[in-house]
């Protein structure tokens, strides 16, 4: 086993996971469960960190958060605390033989020191047990209020050092919930939560439907569709200040906003001409450029990560399918090329962060499932086995696709690895949850 790390990781390169939590802690409104994991998760021991001169305990235990992150990923099998064979806190006291005996591949140890009233420092070391070597050793200062972020950051480092792929623990998910109010009317919330389901916050509350949240590339803003004036309009909201503005209110549809990779424009669907077409809206100048012109429905634009291509849904062939155009300086420079041919319905395409895959809603024989198209080989793989899936969104490291589905007559979120092997389920305590949008990686790394 220990000899095969390299092969193991290349084989499971696409299996990487990045989410959520397996228990229901006090502040988690989203509950996350791994429903199908991968065989052969990596054994790792995370020893509770020493507390040096810590007079005020941290609000959360760093090591529990790290263990939860790693376990949830499906890639790691953290050793239960009660089974730990030793409790070293730094390299000087680690005896690799102890850990080899219990078949641990990796070991994480560390110390927390209190520096001031709310100031702390954490130092940690990650070891390759078989080689008997330190993989990395880092120390970070942090404030008590950032304890969870600090723990996710450590998880990200462990994950990246061992798998070679960036972690996505320090990210957020935006989603829409619909809850039946006492009046029988529905109440809609646009929420964000940490990728482990903690810190759920409602950033918009409306009695009218909310749709299509889309993160800006810097993770600071969300564009979305709100029906608050009884018609669909596009808004942009600062996630952390709550400041918002309506960006479009044309006659007809104002929908499907997505940020361009450079963050300067939104691609969107407008039907002001009488028919849904895709436009580019430059945020600074409010200049509109029409990108499609066809009497069919054209909607659901998605950018390739390098901004050179735009994929959209169109029923110009009679049924909704995905089409692609090439862009140069915000102008379409190619005829629309049809991308999907399998199944009678392919819509809501979204590019993977590396641009190699497009996830979509794939309808075949009355079932609507999440499928992924490998762009270069043009092969389509259906990843899910349900019948009412929609709204796929990639984790920013490309490991997982989060999507909305239906379970026991409730709207729930689920996630699947790009190879279809790892499945997770995310549920809110009440109501329906839909339209997940995974935030980009933050700059805080």
């Amino acid at each position, binding site marked *: 086993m220990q000899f095969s790390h390299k092969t193991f990781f290349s084989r499971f390169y696409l299996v990487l996971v990045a989410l959520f939590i397996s228990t229901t802690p006090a502040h988690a409104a989203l509950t996350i469960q791994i429903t199908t994991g991968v065989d052969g998760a990596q054994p790792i021991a995370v020893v509770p960190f020493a507390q040096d001169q810590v007079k005020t305990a941290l609000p959360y235990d760093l090591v529990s958060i790290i263990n939860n992150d790693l376990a949830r990923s499906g890639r790691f099998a953290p050793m239960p605390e009660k089974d730990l064979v030793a409790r070293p806190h730094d390299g000087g006291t680690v005896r690799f033989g102890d850990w080899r005996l219990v078949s641990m591949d990796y070991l994480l140890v560390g110390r927390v020191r209190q520096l001031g009233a709310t100031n702390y420092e954490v130092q940690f070391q990650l070891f390759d047990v078989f080689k008997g070597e330190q993989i990395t050793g880092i120390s970070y200062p942090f404030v008590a209020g950032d304890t969870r972020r600090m723990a996710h950051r450590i998880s990200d480092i462990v994950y990246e050092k061992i798998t070679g792929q960036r972690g996505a623990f320090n990210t957020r998910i935006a989603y829409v919930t619909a809850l039946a109010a006492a009046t029988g009317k529905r109440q809609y919330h646009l929420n964000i939560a940490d990728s482990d389901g903690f810190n759920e916050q409602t950033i918009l509350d409306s009695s009218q439907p909310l*749709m*299509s949240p889309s993160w800006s590339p810097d993770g600071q803003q969300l564009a979305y569709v709100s029906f608050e004036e009884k018609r669909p309009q596009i808004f942009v909201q600062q996630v952390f200040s709550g400041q918002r503005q309506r960006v479009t209110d044309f006659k007809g*549809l104002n929908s499907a906003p997505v940020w361009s990779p450079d963050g300067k424009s939104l691609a969107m*669907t407008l039907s002001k001409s009488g028919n849904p077409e895709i436009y580019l809206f430059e945020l600074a100048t409010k200049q509109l450029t029409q990108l499609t012109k066809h009497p069919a429905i054209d909607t*659901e634009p998605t950018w390739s990560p390098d901004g050179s291509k735009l994929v959209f849904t169109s*029923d110009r062939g009679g049924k909704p399918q995905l089409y692609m155009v090439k862009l140069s300086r915000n102008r379409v420079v190619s005829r629309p090329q049809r991308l999907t041919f399998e199944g009678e319905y392919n819509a809501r395409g979204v590019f993977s962060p590396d641009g190699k895959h497009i996830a979509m809603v794939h309808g075949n024989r009355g079932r609507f499932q999440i499928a992924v198209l490998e762009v270069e080989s043009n092969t389509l793989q259906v990843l899910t086995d349900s019948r009412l899936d929609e709204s796929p969104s990639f984790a920013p490291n490309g490991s997982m696709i989060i999507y909305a589905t239906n379970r026991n007559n409730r709207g729930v979120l689920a996630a699947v690895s790009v190879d279809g092997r790892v499945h997770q389920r995310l549920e809110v305590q009440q109501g329906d949850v839909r339209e997940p949008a995974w935030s980009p990686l933050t700059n805080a790394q």
Partner: protein
Amino acid sequence: MNHKLLVAAVLLPTVMLSGCETLGGQDGGDVVVEDRGSQVDGGEGTGSGNDGATATGAQAGTAFQGHALDNPQSILYSKVIYFAFDSAAIRNEDRATIQAHAEYLGKNVRAAVVLEGHSDERGSREYNIALGERRAKAVRQLLLFQGAVASQLQTVSYGEESPAAIGHDEDAWQQNRRVEIIYKTR
């Protein structure tokens, strides 16, 4: 019920004549041609149908004290048009209803409606909002051809966001693929 059928039988041929060309395909229905001339022609052409609709309202009025739009015996009482999956084609059985509303709007020039397009939950949400709009515009187009004027008609699509029936089977879906004719003023 008999009245409804009778009215439908009388109206159907005219409605089909005026409606088929524009609504049969997916394409033409979307590009709204604001051609007042042909609308007026359409309205006049269905004059005989107008009498039929009025007669129904008057008869029912003897038993029902209220507005024709609220009278369960009146064809104007139906204000929801249903569709097949991923389709905006108006079914024959709904043409009489649309005809009656078009004539009502033609005679009551201050009346105005919102045509609210909806879809079932299957497929993607953003495609569905476009589909709901296409359905609302198909109904709008037929209303225009049969006597309503553009200023009386407003369209909005909710896609799958505002279902009439909660459920995840064909029973619910068929109730949700609809256009609601909502009178703002009568």
